[in-house]
Every structure is written in structure tokens, then in C-alpha cells.
């Protein structure tokens, strides 16, 4: 072959390998980059005043006085919003008016009896208020303005009646007058639609039982039971989404028959044009920053905080703790067991058929799906072994870590076996020639020399079991629950938490930042553990090489 061609081939090979390395790095970047970017949103974001309220209420964190000032400032702006809605609602929410009118009618009867008015006079007055009540009820439901005016005029003729003076019946006339005023600007034909929209608007602003609103619960209503509903939009991006929901109505419309539905956005502001509610939209839109006071927040406590309401608020502290606990406990079981097995297989086992079988079994075990180990952990540790020793038969940290240890044992044995095998025979010979026993030689010479390889095995095992979900599914991981107090309690882990948040939890869908945050935390945790082990390995390696 000509030398030119050979050089070209050499270069081509170099370029090819370099390209593949670049490709792999790009893929890695493509996977990790967006994940880390999104996950960082759990820690670094624009937090609103609601976030600070939440931190104060749930975690007792922050400056009380500063927060109080902020709340006062925002409340002044919010007040107008509340007022606007209340005013509009009066004309729309007729059901409440109906109820009130019925109540007054009843109260009036009681009042009359208290005054000692009975007999004919009583029934006459009662029939008047019943009449008023019926007329008003019809009025509230009516869509005809003329009818309304007629009815209200009919009601108001009793206003001058002395017998109603200074009784609760006076309120009836106020309601009638107020209603007349309220509906002045409202197109009555659209009242039903307004009613529906108003429910949506109120949900967007104050939250429903399921979704927290922009401003938090209405101050007049009782405090919701769930922590997530007690606060408004804690994050700026969340508040922008809610604002969008407030300003636009999204509908799926079939434009042409047979075609897929299309999303149509219509402006709520236009829909409510001319009504009392119209200024609400622009005032929320323009004053959003004043209402929520967003500020760049670094929520580092994400890594230590417990969560509220399925990770709607709070962090992944117990999950990190559980993961570390299970991982280290698992390694505590796996490393000695793996090392001893490997030592036996290298130093003592002959090339007998049985040992070849055992080796094959170990290799096969390394390829067994992890869910099988999970079921094994459940049936062996939880259901069989623990009751045998009088321990509660339930998933717990101990069972989970033992299951993980068994899962990683093949990896550990293989890596340690290779490491021990690669220790030069001359080291062992030198030690044996000095009179050391086989065991002493193994402990003092072979093991230290094999340490880098063994540490590699530990790194591989560590990263594997820190991220495993299936084996601990039944053996001791839970999605929610108290922080474990002993090794016989189940625990939350990052891996299982990520899985749980990913599958169909309604609340976790609303907090993708926490979802990604948990996954990224797991990745970072594994990286940190690896970095630790790699650092240790390079130190051992240096010491062995004598640099």
C-alpha cells in the first residue's frame, strides 16, 4: 500500500473516532442539558410574594416585618380587584340574591311574631312579602328588561308603607334597587354565559379545590384545608400562565365537520366589554407585578425541605436522605459479600465444573431484569425472612437495601474478581516467600493492590443502585409518608419519587419544575457519589504508583 493512502487512512480513522466522541458528548448534552435547565427551575426562579408567604407559613422562613409590608402593599392593589368582581357578581349571581330574599321573608315573619302582631294583620303583611319575594325571584331569572322594570316598580310601591319601616323587610327594597342598578349595564341575554365565565374567572383568581389561583383564596372565604390551596401563584411563570387563562378563553371548535378540532382563543376582555367587569382584566394585566412582587429567588432549601401536597410545595430532603440511606446500606451489604465471593473465586476456587457453573450464574444474574429482584425482595425478605425473625412483614429500608445489594452483587463480584486477578502474581509470591499465610497475603498485599479496580466496581454499583426503582418498588419505597425513624420503616427515595411523579399524579403535573428538580437531584447525587469514589480511586492509585 502506498504511504500516502496509509496516512490518509490513519487520518480518517482519527477523525472518525474524534467525531464519534463529539457525537456522544452532544447526545449527552442534548439529554442532560434540557433536563438540568428545567430542573434548575426548582431552585432558581422568580418567586412571588405568595412564595414568601408560603415559606413563612409552612417553613417559618423569612423576615416577618418585610413580608407584612409587602402583603399590605399588594393588598391595596388587590382590593380594587376584589371590589370589581363583587360588584359585578351582584348582578349575575342571582342565586345568592334569591336566597337572601327568601331569608328576609322568613326573618320578617319572626320579627312580626316578636312584635306581637298576629291574626289578620300578620297574614296580610306576610302575603305582601311573599308576593314581593315571588316577584323578585321571577325578576332575578328574567331576561326581559321591561318585565324587570315593571316588577321592580311593583315591589318599590311598598317601600313607602309605614309598616315596613325599620324592619328587615327594608332590605328587600335595597336589593331591588341595587339589582336594577347592577343590571343596567348587563346584557341580560348573556347572563348565563357571564355566570359560567365568572366561575372560571374566580377559579383563576382565587383557585378552586383542585387548582390554586393567581391571588390565593378569597379573603372572605374560610382557609382551604390543603396547603397548596392556601396560596396564590408562588412562581412568576405560573402567574403568567394564570394571567393568560384569565385574559383568554380557549375553546376547541369543530370548524369543518370531520376535521380535527381547532383551538380558538377569544379575549375575555372583549366578551365583557361594556360591563362592570371590563376594567378588571386590564388592571390585573397592568398591575400583575405590583400584585405579586416577583423577585429572583434561590430556593436552596429545596434539597432539605420536606414537601407538601404531593410535591406541590417544598423540596426533596427526605428523598435525598432515603436514597443515601438505602444506597449506603446496600453497599454495606454488597461490598464485603462481593469482595469475599470474588476472593474465593480467584484465590481458592479451582477450575472445577461447579465453579464454572457458579461463574456463569453470576454473569447471568447481572442480566436479570431489576423488577425480578424487586419481586424476590418482596417474597424473600419481606414475606419470608422478616416474619421468620419476628420482624414486621412490611417493606422497609433494610429490605430495600438488601434487595439492592443482591441486585448489584454480580457487578461487584465481577469487578472485584477482575481487580484481584490483575494483581501481579509476583506481589503474592513475594508475600508468600516472606512467610505470610494466604489470608494475610490477600489482606495486606492483594487487596490494597486491587483497590482501584474494586473501587471501580463500587462506583458502578453505587450509581446503579442509587437510581434503581423497580427493586425497591415493593421492598420499602413509598411515594409519601413520614421520614423514617428506624431501618424497619419504609422510606421515600428520589428514584421512586421521580417514578411516582411521572405516573399520573394530578398535582405533580402542575409542578413540572419539581418533577425535573427531583430527577436532576438524583443525577447530581449520583454524580457526586461517583466523583467522591473516583477521587478516592485516583488517590489510591497515586499512592500505589508512588507519585
Amino acid at each position, binding site marked *: 500500500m502506498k504511504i500516502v493512502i496509509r496516512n490518509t487512512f490513519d487520518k480518517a480513522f482519527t477523525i472518525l473516532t474524534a467525531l464519534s466522541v463529539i457525537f456522544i458528548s452532544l447526545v449527552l448534552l442534548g439529554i442532560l442539558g434540557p433536563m438540568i435547565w428545567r430542573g434548575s427551575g426548582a431552585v432558581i426562579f422568580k418567586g412571588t410574594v405568595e412564595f414568601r408567604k408560603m415559606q413563612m407559613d409552612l417553613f417559618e422562613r423569612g423576615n416577618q416585618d418585610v413580608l407584612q409590608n409587602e402583603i399590605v402593599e399588594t393588598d391595596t392593589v388587590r382590593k380594587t380587584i376584589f371590589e370589581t368582581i363583587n360588584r359585578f357578581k351582584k348582578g349575575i349571581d342571582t342565586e345568592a340574591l334569591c336566597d337572601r330574599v327568601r331569608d328576609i321573608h322568613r326573618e320578617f315573619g319572626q320579627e312580626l311574631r316578636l312584635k306581637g302582631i298576629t291574626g289578620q294583620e300578620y297574614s296580610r303583611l306576610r302575603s305582601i312579602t311573599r308576593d314581593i319575594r315571588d316577584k323578585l325571584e321571577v325578576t332575578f331569572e328574567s331576561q326581559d328588561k321591561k318585565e324587570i322594570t315593571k316588577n321592580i316598580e311593583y315591589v318599590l310601591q311598598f317601600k313607602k308603607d309605614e309598616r315596613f319601616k325599620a324592619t328587615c323587610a327594608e332590605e328587600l327594597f335595597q336589593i331591588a334597587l341595587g339589582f336594577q342598578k347592577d343590571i343596567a349595564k348587563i346584557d341580560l341575554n348573556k347572563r348565563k354565559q357571564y355566570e359560567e365565565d365568572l366561575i372560571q374567572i374566580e377559579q383563576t383568581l382565587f383557585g378552586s379545590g383542585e387548582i390554586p389561583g393567581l391571588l390565593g383564596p378569597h379573603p372572605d372565604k374560610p382557609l382551604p384545608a390543603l396547603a397548596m390551596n392556601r396560596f396564590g401563584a408562588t412562581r412568576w411563570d405560573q402567574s403568567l400562565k394564570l394571567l393568560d387563562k384569565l385574559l383568554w378563553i380557549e375553546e376547541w371548535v369543530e370548524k369543518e365537520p370531520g376535521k380535527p378540532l381547532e383551538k380558538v382563543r377569544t379575549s375575555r376582555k372583549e366578551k365583557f366589554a361594556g360591563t362592570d367587569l371590563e376594567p378588571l382584566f386590564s388592571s390585573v394585566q397592568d398591575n400583575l407585578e405590583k400584585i405579586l412582587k416577583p423577585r429572583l429567588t434561590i430556593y436552596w432549601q429545596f434539597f432539605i425541605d420536606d414537601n407538601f401536597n404531593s410535591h406541590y410545595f417544598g423540596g426533596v430532603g427526605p428523598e435525598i436522605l432515603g436514597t443515601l440511606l438505602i444506597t449506603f446500606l446496600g453497599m454495606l451489604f454488597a461490598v464485603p459479600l462481593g469482595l469475599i465471593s470474588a476472593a474465593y473465586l480467584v484465590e481458592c476456587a479451582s477450575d472445577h465444573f461447579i465453579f464454572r457453573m457458579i461463574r456463569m450464574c453470576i454473569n447471568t444474574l447481572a442480566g436479570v431484569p431489576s423488577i425480578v429482584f424487586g419481586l424476590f425482595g418482596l417474597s424473600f425478605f419481606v414475606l419470608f425472612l422478616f416474619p421468620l425473625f419476628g420482624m414486621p412483614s412490611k417493606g422497609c429500608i433494610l429490605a430495600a437495601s438488601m434487595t439492592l445489594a443482591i441486585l448489584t452483587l454480580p457487578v461487584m463480584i465481577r469487578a472485584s474478581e477482575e481487580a484481584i486477578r490483575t494483581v501481579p502474581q*509476583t506481589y503474592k*509470591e*513475594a508475600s508468600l*516467600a*516472606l*512467610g505470610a499465610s494466604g489470608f494475610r497475603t490477600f489482606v495486606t498485599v492483594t487487596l490494597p493492590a486491587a483497590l482501584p479496580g474494586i473501587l471501580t466496581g463500587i462506583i458502578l454499583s453505587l450509581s446503579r443502585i442509587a437510581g434503581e426503582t423497580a427493586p425497591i418498588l415493593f421492598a420499602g419505597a413509598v411515594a409519601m409518608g413520614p421520614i423514617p425513624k428506624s431501618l424497619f420503616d419504609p422510606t421515600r427515595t428520589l428514584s421512586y419519587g421521580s417514578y411516582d411523579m411521572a405516573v399520573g399524579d394530578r398535582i405533580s403535573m402542575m409542578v413540572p419544575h419539581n418533577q425535573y428538580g427531583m430527577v436532576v437531584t438524583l443525577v447530581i447525587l449520583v454524580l457526586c457519589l461517583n466523583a467522591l469514589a473516583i477521587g478516592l480511586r485516583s488517590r489510591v492509585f497515586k*499512592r500505589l*504508583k*508512588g507519585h
Partner: protein
Amino acid sequence: MPMTSVQKDTKSAATGLTMKVESKLALVEKKDSLNRHCAIIKAEGFSFYYGSKVGVKDITMDVNQCSVTAIIGPSGCGKSTFLRSMNRMNDLIPHTRAEGKLIVDNQDIYDKRVNLVNLRQQVGMVFQKPNPFPKSIFDNVAYGPRLQGTKKRSELQQIVEQSLDAAALWKEIKDDLKKSALALSGGQQQRLCIARALATKPRVLLMDEPCSALDPIATGRIEDLIEELKSTYTIVIVTHNMQQAARVSERAAFFCLGELIEYDLTSKIFGNPGKKQTEDYITGRFG
């Protein structure tokens, strides 16, 4: 049969040596006969088998105390097998078997009751390649004494110093005792291995081609060291380098195909070999 340059060298060296050695012959013979009475290693009809393969067959020879005995011979002739039998390092290989007697210090070492730990501390070994442990220099030398149960730092310090001094290494590395042994040069490493073997205070030192991985200068140093050590220790050395055997040893054994062909004073082996095979080998006509 045309001679290669190496063969020529060997021959001229051997004849040159003959001249030098002959004048001292009388003296050496006298000393040798004195030493004969206190042979420390005695092989009596000793054979060693790897499974069905013969390692060495029917060896009968005595090794004198406080002398250097060289074992020479072509590759695969059983030199190393015999040497490794002397501290039972061959036991590491599965399916081996020994026959006959191999007596070290009045004890048959293939007896079942023999304590391997004691034996190996009595009979130290230096290997072909320098094989210090990946530990500090101090820990390397102190390894043997620690096995013997010496724990006191001061005692260990003393033994380490003595051993390194005996191995002519103390002056070079006395300030670097904490450094890794692997940071030393090849020659230094081999001398460290000798010091390590000496630290258990053995009576016999087995050397399995100790200089084959070293350059000539390091080889020279090791040879000087052997010269010094032989006043205290009995040294058995396996070597491929016949000048080395001639330079350092007092008696030499020639092995071929697992059998002991000739065993005599080194001067006689190289000057006036009794067997044709020996002469062929040392003059380079064979092997």
C-alpha cells in the same frame, strides 16, 4: 558449526577465567572441604513433578553454609523448580508432587509437619523481576518482621535500617523511607527486595535470576552485594549469565532436562568440567 559472537564471548571469558581462578584453586578447595561438613541444604534423591510432567528428577546435592552456590543450565532444565522447592514456593501450583528428601537445616521440608511460615522465613527468596509491594519503602522492608509479630516502631525502624544497610541501599534512600517503593529504579528495587528478604533474618537466600531484568551497572551492584552477603548467608542463585555464575559463586551445579549433570567447585565446572554435556553448554556449543 559456526559460532555466534555471543558464543565466542562466552568461550573466551570462560578460558580467561580459568587462568585467573587456577592460582586460587588450592585455597578455594581447602575452604570448600571445610564447608562441606556443615551443609545446610541436602537433597537426597529429590524429584519434583508437575502432574505427570517431570520438573527435576533424582537430585542429590549438598549446599554449603555461608557460600554462594550457582545453578546453571538451559531453559526448562529445572533450575528454578529446584530453587523454588527449597522454600516450597512450588506448592502454589496445583497438582504438584515431590519425592525423595530435601533437607534444610536438618529438617525434611516436604514433611507434613513442617511449618511453612517458619521455613519461608528461614529461606528467603529474591525473584527474577524486582517485585516490591506497592507500599512505602519502610512498609516493604518491615513486612516480614511484622509477620513475625514485631509491632514496636523503634524495633521495626532498627530492623529496616539494618536490612537496608545490609542490602547497600540505606545511604541512598534513608530520607525517603515513606516514599513508594515503586518510585525507585529497577536496581534499587531489586536491592530493596533483597533487604526485604533479609529483614526476616533468614539463613538461606534463594535468588532466581536476580539480575536478568537489570542493566549492567545495577547487576554489578547486586553482585557486589552477593559477595558481601555470603559471609552471613547461604546463597543459592539461579542464573543464565555464566560470567555471573563464575564471578559470584563458589560451587556450581549444571542442570539439564531436569537432571543434575555435574556439581562441583565453580572453578572446576568452568575450567575443567567433568562431563561432556557441561563443557558443551559452557562453551556455547549447546543450549
